[in-house]
């Protein structure tokens, strides 16, 4: 038997996980932000409390060929809502896109990883929030004998309104797909490296793939290898070759 102290510890740990997921410093009182900025990886990992900046975030929708955006709201107070495909579809597409490049195991998935509210100016209520729901999967991926963590999210989002920070390269493919890619340090005491590729397709859908040499690209997990299992070029190929 144990006591309430352990239950309190469990609550504290769950709070810490919530803060880690939202990018909120643990044990600090969150202050209103003047502006939200979508930084690399934050789209899939962090909650964006979009205020006034018009950036913000969403979730996956998918399949450019079959998904359509929700029509604009007819009521000023009704959030526009777009729903994407389910986890199974995302997983199947990822497997097909990887081909023989790598194998992967999904350890966490859900419709909510990318579900966000995207208010252009929610502080004034001038624009109703937009909710986009899709699917995201996380897990481990092995390529060339190297294993690491991955996070894949797909959702409808246009390129405009996104502010990039850090050293990220951007280029446009002949079909109009814009590709942003770069590397950044994984969070946590173990160190590690995350590689990030995001595509913005002409149809308005976007896909984010993050591969890490930590067990989770979200950080605070152990190192699984000397480097992420896929190179940036391989990741770009995965997100553009067969999607």
């Amino acid at each position, binding site marked *: *038997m*144990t*006591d*309430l*102290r*352990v*239950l*309190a*510890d*469990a*609550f504290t*740990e*769950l*709070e810490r*996980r*919530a*803060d*880690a*997921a*939202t990018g*909120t410093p643990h044990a600090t009182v*969150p*202050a*209103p*932000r003047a502006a939200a900025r979508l930084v690399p990886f934050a789209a899939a990992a962090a*909650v964006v*409390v979009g205020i*006034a900046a018009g950036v913000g975030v969403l979730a996956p929708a998918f399949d450019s060929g079959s998904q359509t955006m929700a029509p604009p709201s007819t009521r000023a*107070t*009704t*959030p526009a809502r777009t729903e994407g495909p*389910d*986890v199974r579809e995302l997983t199947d597409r990822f497997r097909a896109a990887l081909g023989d490049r790598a194998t992967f195991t*999904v*350890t966490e*998935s*859900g419709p*909510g*990883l990318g*579900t*966000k*509210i995207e*208010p252009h*100016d*929610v*502080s*004034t*209520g001038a624009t*109703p*929030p937009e*909710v986009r*729901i899709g699917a995201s999967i*996380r897990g481990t991926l092995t390529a060339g004998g190297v294993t690491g963590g991955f996070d894949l999210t797909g959702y409808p989002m246009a390129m405009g309104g996104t502010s990039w920070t850090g050293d990220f390269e951007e280029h446009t493919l002949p079909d109009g797909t814009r590709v942003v890619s770069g590397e950044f340090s994984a969070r946590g005491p*173990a160190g590690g490296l995350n590689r990030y590729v995001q595509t913005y397709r002409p149809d308005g859908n976007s896909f984010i793939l993050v591969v890490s040499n*930590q067990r*989770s690209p979200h950080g*605070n*997990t*152990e*190192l699984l290898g000397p480097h992420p299992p896929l190179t940036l070029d391989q990741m770009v190929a995965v997100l553009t070759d067969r999607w």
Partner: protein
Amino acid sequence: MEFGAYVARQRPALMRFATVLTCQTWLAEDLVSDVLCRAYERWDRISRMDQPHAYVRRMVVNEYLSWRRRLARVTPRAEVEPAGYGDGTDERAERDAMIRRLAGLPRRQRAAVVLRYYAGLPDSEIAALLGCRETTVRSQIFRALAALRIDLAESSPTYQETR
């Protein structure tokens, strides 16, 4: 309070509450986003309440209790445990075991435990939230504590119940 200001100020707290309730950050994010979306639709009315945050938190509980029913049909049961924190102390193992037991509770029992021991609500409010009698709340918590292997008699004075 404007909706935007409310979101900016309270969303982290809602996320914490929802994560404690669901034991899954991704589900908590989805839950909170869904609830805020609906709260926005009726913010004129909610903002005039004495305690808008209490009302929104209640929406989270209600959504959770209904969400789980949908969730069970569409998502895998697999739960990702944070790995590699490294030192493997007994306290950490004990805490993680508690989280697993908490996650394994029936949803109404878990909600009752979270509302009493995390949110600090009296049984009367928990009963109102869950739509049951106080005696039912107490019996749910009694069973939950047994499943969590918590003996209130062993709790230190710091963690003794105050009610």
